[in-house]
C-alpha cells in the first residue's frame, strides 16, 4: 500500500508526462471504430500523431499499464491504475493502442502461460508490433462454442491442423491467431480442446473477409489446411484448452461491455447528441428522456466495472461478473447508437456523410450482443451459476 503522498506524486508525474507526450490530435473528439490504433505489421497509422502517441506510451509501458514491467507494462497497482484512468480522461486522451492481444490473449497468457511464453509473446503486443486475432467460432459452433471441430492431429513435435474458423475479426490484418483446436476427438467436448497459437504467415493458413451489413469487412473466415503448429505453441495443458478459453472469454466480455460507454469514449451522450443536432435544433423531449436514461445506466455500469476491479483486487470478486457486464454493457451500447442515429436524423443516413460513418458504427454495435456470447447465453450463465436456477 502506498501513501497518498506517493500516489499524488505519481499523479503529478503522470500529468506532466501526458502534457508533454500526448499529441493534441489524440485528445478529445469522438472515438470511432475507424480511429482505433490496432498496431501490428500491417497497420497503417492514420496520422503521425497516432504513431507517435503509441510509441511514446509503449516506451513507458502505458499501452498496457497494469502488466508487469518485464512483459512490457508499467506495473501499475490498482490505485495507480485509477489515477491513470482519471488523468487520461481528464485530457480526453485516446487509448494509445487497442488490440485483442491486450484485451484477451495478454490476460490469458499472464494467467496460464509459462515465463518463457510471456517474455516471448507479451512485449511485442505491448509495443504494438504483433497483432492477434481470435479463432473461436466455427460454422457449426456458435453459442455452442465447445463443439468446435477444427482438429489438430498429434505428429510428435507438432500438431497438424485442419478446419475452418469464422467471425475471426480482423484476421486479414492480424499477424497471429489464438485458436481453439480439437486435439482429442474421443473425449467429451469440453475435454478435448487445446489452446494453440498459430502464425498467420504459416503455409496452409488462408483468410477471407466477410462483407457485413455495415459495409465493412471486419469479420473473416479463416481456413487451416495441413498447418504445422509446433508443440511449444500451446497455452496451458493439452486438452485443457477450454479452461483458457473460458478465462479469456471473461476478459473479452468485459472488453465488449466497454463499461457501458462503447465507442463514445466516455463522453456524455447528451453532449454528443446536442452536437449532432446542429444549429437551431433543440433536443426533442422523448430523445432527451431516452438519453438521460441511457446516461444514468452508462454511468452506473461504468461504476460497476470499477467496483468489480476493486473486488478482484480485494480478492472478493464474483466469478461470473463478466457475463452480467457483457449483457448490460452491450445492450446499452446498442441503445446509445440508436439515439445517436435518431439525433443525427437524415444526416446520419449516408455512408461517410456529414456525421462521418455513423451508420457503420451503429450497425457494428448490433454484433455486440452476439459476439463473445449472446445476451441470451449471458442470461443463462447468470441464472445457472449465480441464481442456481435450471436443470
Amino acid at each position: 500500500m502506498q501513501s497518498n503522498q506517493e500516489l499524488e506524486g505519481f499523479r503529478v508525474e503522470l500529468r506532466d508526462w501526458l502534457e508533454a507526450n500526448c499529441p493534441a490530435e489524440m485528445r478529445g473528439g469522438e472515438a470511432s471504430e475507424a480511429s482505433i490504433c490496432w498496431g501490428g505489421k500491417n497497420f497503417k497509422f492514420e496520422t503521425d500523431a497516432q504513431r507517435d502517441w503509441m510509441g511514446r506510451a509503449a516506451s513507458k509501458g502505458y499501452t498496457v499499464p497494469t502488466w508487469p514491467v518485464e512483459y512490457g507494462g508499467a506495473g501499475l497497482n490498482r490505485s495507480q491504475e485509477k489515477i491513470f484512468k482519471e488523468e487520461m480522461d481528464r485530457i480526453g486522451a485516446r487509448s494509445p493502442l487497442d488490440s485483442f492481444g491486450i484485451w484477451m490473449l495478454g490476460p490469458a497468457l499472464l494467467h496460464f502461460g509459462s515465463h518463457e511464453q510471456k517474455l516471448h509473446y507479451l512485449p511485442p503486443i505491448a509495443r504494438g508490433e504483433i497483432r492477434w486475432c481470435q479463432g473461436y467460432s466455427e460454422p457449426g459452433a456458435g453459442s455452442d462454442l465447445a463443439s468446435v471441430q477444427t482438429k489438430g492431429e498429434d505428429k510428435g513435435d507438432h500438431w497438424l491442423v485442419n478446419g475452418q474458423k469464422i467471425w475471426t475479426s480482423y484476421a486479414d490484418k492480424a499477424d497471429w491467431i489464438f485458436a481453439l483446436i480439437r486435439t482429442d476427438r474421443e473425449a467429451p467436448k469440453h475435454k478435448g480442446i487445446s489452446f494453440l497459437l498459430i502464425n498467420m504467415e504459416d503455409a496452409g493458413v488462408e483468410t477471407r473477409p466477410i462483407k457485413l451489413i455495415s459495409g465493412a469487412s471486419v469479420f473473416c473466415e479463416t481456413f487451416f489446411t495441413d498447418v504445422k503448429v509446433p508443440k511449444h505453441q500451446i497455452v496451458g495443458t493439452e486438452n485443457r484448452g477450454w479452461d483458457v478459453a473460458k478465462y479469456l472469454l471473461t476478459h473479452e466480455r468485459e472488453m465488449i461491455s466497454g463499461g457501458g460507454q462503447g465507442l463514445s469514449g466516455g463522453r456524455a451522450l447528451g453532449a454528443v447528441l446536442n452536437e449532432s443536432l446542429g444549429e437551431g435544433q433543440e433536443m426533442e423531449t422523448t430523445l432527451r428522456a431516452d438519453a438521460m436514461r441511457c446516461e444514468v445506466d452508462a454511468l452506473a455500469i461504468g461504476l460497476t466495472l470499477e467496483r468489480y476491479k476493486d473486488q478482484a483486487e480485494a480478492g472478493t470478486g464474483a466469478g461470473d461478473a463478466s457475463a452480467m457486464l457483457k449483457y448490460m454493457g452491450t445492450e446499452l451500447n446498442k441503445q446509445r447508437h440508436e439515439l445517436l442515429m435518431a439525433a443525427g436524423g437524415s444526416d446520419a443516413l449516408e455512408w461517410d456523410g456529414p456525421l462521418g460513418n455513423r451508420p457503420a458504427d451503429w450497425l457494428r454495435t448490433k454484433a455486440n450482443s452476439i459476439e463473445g456470447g449472446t445476451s441470451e447465453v449471458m442470461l443463462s450463465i447468470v441464472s445457472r451459476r449465480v441464481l442456481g436456477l435450471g436443470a
Partner: protein
Amino acid sequence: MANLVMTEDETMLADAARGFLDKSAPVKAFRDLRDAGKTHDAKMWKEMADMGWAGVLVPESAGGSDMGHAAAGVLAHEMGKTLVVSPFLSTAVIAATALRNVSDARAQKALAAIATGDVTYALAVDEASKFNPEATSMVATREGNGFRLSGKKTFVVDGALAGRLLVLAKTDDGLTLFDIPADRAGITRNAQNMIDARDSARIDFDNVEATGEDVMGQVDSAMSVLKPALEAGQAALAAEMAGLSAGAFGMTVAYLKERKQFGTVIGNFQALQHRAAHLWCEIEVTASAIMNAGRMLDEDPDNATMAVSLAKARATSTAQLAVQEGVQMHGGIGMTDAYDIGFYMKRARVGAEWLGDYGYHANQVAKHRGF
C-alpha cells in the same frame, strides 16, 4: 475514485444489523404493526439507538457512533430488505446531517438527543405532489427578532409522530430552514393513510411563531444546511430501496425454485430464468451506484450531487422492476394481501416519490453531464 468494496467494518455492521433485524424486525413485524394500525415502534427505535444506529451520523463528541454515510447506507439497505419501519432516514440521516452543518450549542444538544433516540424529526419540504424545494411558497414573515410561519406542507414523512419538524419557508431574500417542536401553537397535523402503511402527514402552519434561535444556519440560505441533508437522505433512501429490491428478489427466486407447474419447478423455464437473471443484473449495477454515493458523501461531500442522484435514479428504477417482476413471477398469490411481496411494491412506490423521483434525479445527472 473511491474504493467501491465494502470495508471489513461495513461487512461486520451489515452482518450485525441482519442478525438483529431477522430476530426483531422480519417482514412479519411490519405486518403486525400495519394490522395494529401503528406506524412507529418506539421500543425498537430505542434498541436501534442503543446499538448506535440513531447516532450513525452524530459526532462522538455529541454521543454518536459517527460511522459515516456509507455505513448509514449499509444499515438502510438491511432495513430495506425486511421493510423495517423506523425514523432512521428522517431523524438519524436527514436531521442529523442538517444539524451537523450548523455549528452552535443548540445543534450539539439536538444531535445528542438524536443519538440517544430521545427525539425524532421529520422534514417538511414538499408543498405539491412533486418534490421541488426551490419552488417553496410557504412564507416566514419577519416579526421583531423572529418570524411567523404560514402555509401548508404535504408528504411530511414521519410527520404525524415526530417530535420536531425541519420546515422550509420563504424569507425576504431566499429560503430559510427552521427547526421547531411539532406541538408549537398553530401547527395542525393530519396523518395520511399511506399505501406503505408508514407515517406521513399533511401539516398546516397558521401564523406559527419561530424565533431567531429556531433558524438552522443562516436566514435566507437554507440550502447550505438543507442540501447536504437532502443528499444524505436521498443516498440512504436509495440504499433502502436497493435493500428492498434485494429482499423482493430473494423472495422471488426462492419461489421460482419451489413452485411447480407442468410437472416441474417453474425456475426450470428459460422465460422466467432470463427475467430473473436480467433483474439480478440491474440490482448488481445499482449496487455500484449506491456504494459510490455513500463514499462520495464521506470523502468529497461538496461534489456528491451527481453521485447521489445517480444512486437515487437507479435505485428507483431497479426497485420498480424488482417488485413488478416479483408480483408477476409469483402469479396470483402475489396479488394477495396475505403474501408479503405486495408490501414491497407499495413501499417501492413511496420510495420512488420521496426526495425526488426518477425524472428529478435523472435530470440532475443530465445537468451534471452537460445536457
